[in-house]
């Protein structure tokens, strides 16, 4: 119990003294996971919408693949990205293993199926007739897709939250492709793992609390946007 209290006390101290190392780690986590989520949104909403609005042979198979991808284990993604990015590996010429960029790539791969799956479900549950109606009013196909995405805004924001939540809390891939390098590729989760193995449980708990507070603030903002737009 003492350790928990120490941890909470340490978290408060680190937050209120604006400890520069912890602030740096938090900001880096935000930048990396935010960028990864944005990339996954572009790809995920794109693919999700495309699959939702079209029909083609093997569609069910593709949908089941996307849904399986939502359970993609981060360590497995980390392993494959590491092997691809090794300097003697197929993408070694990029020289980005053990950099923040490598973490962004791995996290984008983890978040994309999540965003795709939720977008797909969101777009599919719009009434079919809506599409015909929009087209009948003289909209082009592109305009129609845009209007449909706006109609599905609430569940799509849920996709953002799920994607971001998935990657900000992920540790397996980040530690493998980022290397947990101090002041460079150390994020909140990898720092927590390291402090735990160093026996600094109070700092580890503090970092965990900061991660939770931070995830809460992000979701609070997103929820505000989502619920403001709630249909009456």
């Amino acid at each position, binding site marked *: 119990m003492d*350790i928990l209290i120490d941890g909470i006390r340490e978290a408060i101290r680190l937050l209120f003294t604006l400890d520069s190392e912890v602030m740096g780690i938090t900001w880096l986590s935000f*930048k*990396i996971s*935010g*960028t990864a989520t*944005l990339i996954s949104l572009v790809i995920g909403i794109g693919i999700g919408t495309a699959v939702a609005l079209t029909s083609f042979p093997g569609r069910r198979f593709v949908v089941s693949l996307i849904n399986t991808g939502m359970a993609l284990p981060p360590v497995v993604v980390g392993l494959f990205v590491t092997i691809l990015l*090794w*300097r*003697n590996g197929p993408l*070694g010429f990029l*020289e*980005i*293993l*053990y*950099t*923040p*960029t490598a973490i*962004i790539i791995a996290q984008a791969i983890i978040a994309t199926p999540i965003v795709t799956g939720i977008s797909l479900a969101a777009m599919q549950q719009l009434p079919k007739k809506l599409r015909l109606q929009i087209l009948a009013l003289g909209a082009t196909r592109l305009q129609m897709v*845009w209007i449909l995405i*706006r109609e599905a805004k609430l569940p799509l924001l849920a996709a953002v939250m799920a994607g971001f939540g998935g990657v900000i809390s992920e540790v397996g891939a980040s530690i493998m492709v980022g*290397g*947990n*390098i*101090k002041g*460079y590729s150390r994020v909140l989760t990898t720092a927590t793992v*390291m402090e*735990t*193995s*160093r*026996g600094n*449980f109070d700092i580890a708990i503090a970092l965990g609390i900061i991660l939770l507070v931070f995830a809460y603030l992000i979701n609070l903002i997103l929820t505000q946007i989502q619920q403001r737009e709630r249909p009456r």
Partner: protein
Amino acid sequence: MRRASKWGILLSIAAVLFLVSGMLPAEAAKVQKSIILATTTSTQDSGLLDVLIPIFEKKTGYFVKTIAVGSGQAMAMGRKGEADVLLVHSPDAEKKFIAEGHGIKRRLVMHNDFIIVGPPSDPAGIRGLKSAAVAFRKITVSGAVFTSRGDYSGTHTKEISIWKKAGVSCEGQKWYQQTGLGMGQTLSVAAEKKTYTLTDRGTYLALKKNLGLDILVEGDAILLNIYHVIQVNPAKWPKVNAAGARAFADFMVSRSVQKIIKTFGVAKFGSPLFFPDAGKKEDTLGR
């Protein structure tokens, strides 16, 4: 459509900001002069590298990417040319690594020692024994459980050599549990389950206050824990940063660093965590 485009603009501004800041302008410069140091967890978890690396970076301008894994994995990285320089503690495996031509210039840096720890009640009665092998044998016959790293780290390799000396085969035995985790986590497991384990002294001292495990056997010559620095062979892997690796290896055995190693940990633990050995012969240690 007007509201929609406002959203679009906001989102794209955010996206551009993210991408620009995410790419980190410093990164391009760092890639040029960076070296990858693959090392054992004990050098990082003890905090020694946090002291040494900034000094090295300031002195030479290199950016060090420290990848803290077990010695086994560190050498696997070296074998693939995915690291430039290694700081490891698994002498037999290191000799093989050099003999196979994966590394060059293996140099002695420092040592400390391994200890056998266990619950204070000591059900196997090994407290104070002079021989690690005898202690291991006693643990097996007492019915107590031994917790192993099981990850081919330097510590695990050492443990295997002690089992060999004790003449006990532990693979698949009920009393032999493998965690596959780092030293700190393995110590926590041993503490929770009240089992015996082999650990390096530095990690044990760092975690001691939360463990409730006692040092039961220490001082046997086989328990010596020796760290070497090895440069990955650039002739085998042209992408290896040979100059950077040499600079780091030279730095580790330099007089000023050896002096820092000598006093590191004294303030916090009352005794040093490592003993500097640069220039000495390996077989003269511990005598």
